[in-house]
């Protein structure tokens, strides 16, 4: 599903965010990316949906070299990749249902499809009763569920989560992880960058550890350290 071949990313001022990373993630895998702040986790995720370009090396997503993707095709790559962030990135002037519908509307899905899919995905994330609420009326955990619903409503092949539990308390985080696990079980490949030791240690999934941009550990059914 995802393949990196000697990928290096250097930002201005010789900041190395990723150095010679070569690895492969198979379809349906659940992968934790761990490492200290600035170790390159976010860059790793941003390279996959072409928000950043690698300085060297090649990246394949779903069998395609995304370095050779012309810029007008990038949106179509991103339709196959859902994204979840620590700060949710919800639109505050739209209701829960509208936030999710927005993601479908802007990629040109027909209205009947939107009408059918939005309630279904909100039920899936457990927010069926809050569809008319605004984000500020929800708890942090609920807001993150909305953002997961938005990322997943288009049934992407890959879900990228950048510290999705970073702003949440431990018990709420568990609920979010259950949700991501369910999504993973539908066959969606999940990559999650995290600092949350207990989550990584409980889930026992593949762990890739980065340190100053280098992959220093890649372990199936791993722990945080």
């Amino acid at each position: 599903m995802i393949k990196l071949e000697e990928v290096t990313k250097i930002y201005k001022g010789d900041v190395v965010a990723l150095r010679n990373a070569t690895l492969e993630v198979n379809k349906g895998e659940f992968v934790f990316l761990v490492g200290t702040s600035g170790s390159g986790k976010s860059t790793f995720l941003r390279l996959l949906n072409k928000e950043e370009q690698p300085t060297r090396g090649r990246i394949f997503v779903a069998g395609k070299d995304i370095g050779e993707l012309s810029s007008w095709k990038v949106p179509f790559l991103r339709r196959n990749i859902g994204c979840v962030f620590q700060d949710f990135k919800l639109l505050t002037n739209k209701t829960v249902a509208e936030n999710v519908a927005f993601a479908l509307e802007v990629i040109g899905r027909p209205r009947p499809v939107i009408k059918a899919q939005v309630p279904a995905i909100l039920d899936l994330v457990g927010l069926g009763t809050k569809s008319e609420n605004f984000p500020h009326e929800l708890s942090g955990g609920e807001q993150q569920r909305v953002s997961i619903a938005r990322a997943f409503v288009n049934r992407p092949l890959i879900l990228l989560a950048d510290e999705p539990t970073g702003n949440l308390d431990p018990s709420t985080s568990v609920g979010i992880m259950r949700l991501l696990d369910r999504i993973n079980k539908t066959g969606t490949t999940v990559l999650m960058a995290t600092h949350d030791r207990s989550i990584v240690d409980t889930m026992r999934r593949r762990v890739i550890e980065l340190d100053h941009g280098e992959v220093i550990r890649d372990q199936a059914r791993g722990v945080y350290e």
Partner: protein
Amino acid sequence: MPIKVDYAARETASNLRRNFTITLASVLTVFVSLFLVGFSLLFRQGVEKTTERWRGGIEFIVFLSPTANPDQINAVRTALDSPEIEKVTFVDQNAAFDEFRELFKSQPDLLQSVTPDILPPSFRVVPRDKDARTVEDLSAQFRGKPGVKEVVSATETIKLVQKLSNWATFFISGVAFVLLGVAVLLILNTIRMAMYARRREIEVMKLVGATNSFIRVPFMLEGLIQGASGAALAVGGLVVALPFLERGLPSATDFPLFSGIIPATGDRLVTYVLIAIVGCLVGAAGAGAAVSRFLDV
């Protein structure tokens, strides 16, 4: 991917509402500049048409009687063939009729009452020496000759009008062009503000894979609408203002046929279409610059 029309319309409308004051500023700037452009174009066309027969250094015109016979015409022609005269152009009755039709295009009643055979053929004369007194002496020789109906010389007034019109159009166009530049910048900034106000939405749109064109269309439309509204106001303004202007000027029929100045307003429709096109271009240029500079993937 098809752009959804209702989506684009809704987003554009809300952008325009959100930035109402600055949108108004852009629209008014486009309006004022295009009004000036249109005004100077129409004014210039009018002056050019009216003074057309005096272009190319023509200093006096010998109008022949419509009933002049070929011998009389040839006699005048021979007399004009002198070393003092640089160039002579003969305008026969059909050419005179064409010219007449062009001048009085806006007055169909007048046109219907005229046929080529009642119009005077004429010699347009370019003398070698342009000094007023020499021209006067020269033209006087043809007054009263057989077959000559009237001799009209380019007065200082006509020359002054031509000069003033050149200056006025030059100056007004200069101001109008600066204002058009201002309008482009204003529209650019309006769109930029609209994009800033929607930056979170744009971010989400990019994340979920909305195409560039989908993201850009509402902003492009916003600029286009601003430019087009300004142009519409300018055309409306000209339509309202021109009759007042013309009322102030003497009407064409007040002038004797052979005098120098006839107020003509030129081809208005072409000017209006031109204004509309320039308005849309200004809007598109401002929006396009904003979108390509501040909306990268």
